[in-house]
């Protein structure tokens, strides 16, 4: 897949995951890996890092009962707005591609 296209799609998927519930980094990486087995795990980390830098996510620390201190990511209002825009762009592209006759 083209790098630019992949980047946009992965960003959208990651933000969508976060909009459903807060997650910690490792969990998110493992989950995304199931859907995109050919993408390297650390690529998700790099995207997550960039999303945080753009202030689309917040970070807070939580502890599990038996585990280490975990860094949780939470989607911000800016993030939600960005996600909504990304989804609508995606829908537009999808409908254009469909109308061209590509199933």
């Amino acid at each position: 897949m083209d790098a630019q296209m992949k980047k946009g799609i992965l960003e959208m998927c990651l933000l969508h995951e976060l909009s459903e519930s807060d997650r910690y980094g490792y969990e998110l990486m493992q989950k995304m890996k199931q859907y995109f087995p050919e993408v390297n795990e650390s690529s998700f980390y790099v995207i997550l890092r960039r999303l945080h830098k753009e202030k689309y996510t917040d970070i807070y620390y939580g502890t599990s009962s038996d585990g280490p201190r975990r860094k949780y990511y939470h989607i911000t209002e800016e993030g939600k707005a960005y996600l909504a825009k990304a989804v609508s762009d995606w829908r537009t592209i999808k409908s254009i591609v469909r109308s061209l006759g590509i199933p």
Partner: protein
Amino acid sequence: MNTKKTFLMRLKFFMSCRFRLREIRDTLDDFNGFFEEGIREGKTEGELCLSFGSPWEIVRQMSAGKRRISLHMLLALLAAAVCGACLWRMAASPYTLQAPSFFFCIPVLAAGAALLFADGGILFQMEPPETFSFLRPALWRLASLVLAGSLLLFCQKGPQWIAASAEPSAAGPLAGGACHLFAACGAALALYSAYAFFHGHPASFGLALLGMGVLCSSYAMQDFLHRLDALASSPSYPLFPCVLGIFLSLLCNGALLAFTGKNLTVLRHTKRRG
């Protein structure tokens, strides 16, 4: 050799030129956490390294969209270049610094090359071959050994050089004190280089190198004092190049200090976490 330790070390190495300390710390903390989680799930360090991919690739992706040459690298390369030039000038000066002083240039130039290697890999989008990751600590050890050797030579020869270069009028208590100070500094730094040898890490080597830079600029200062004396006796002596030389060497030592100081903090941080 795919262990958590080497993975984090390589990650830090490639990040050290391009990112701020806070960013490096955060990233190292994050990956440390991922390793902990993975190990709790029963995976081995080797498997985890494989799934995270190469540290070089991670840093390359992270630095996408950044300026291509980091300011840090420019400063450090300038430092290495001017230190080398300063040493060369000393070697060519009339104050009887002989050919062995070329020997001092080797570690300084090695540091410049190492920086080019760390940052240039990202800059030129070329991943250093995997074999270099085995060689690298060995390279640092070799460089620190050369540094230790040249410093020992320096503390043996340096006082003689100063004594020989002193004008009869200046060869008073000042020159004598400077000689002892030089010898002591050189010996301490040689010891530190030996420590760097066991560590095999760029940060510790960098610090020893920094010490040598300071020693050189104090030599330049000494040289300056002599020139002032000479100026008093014959007004045609070139003062300006000498002052410029001292200024540049102090500036570059500052840059080297910033670079090594930062690396050292990162090094301490990882040691505590690891």
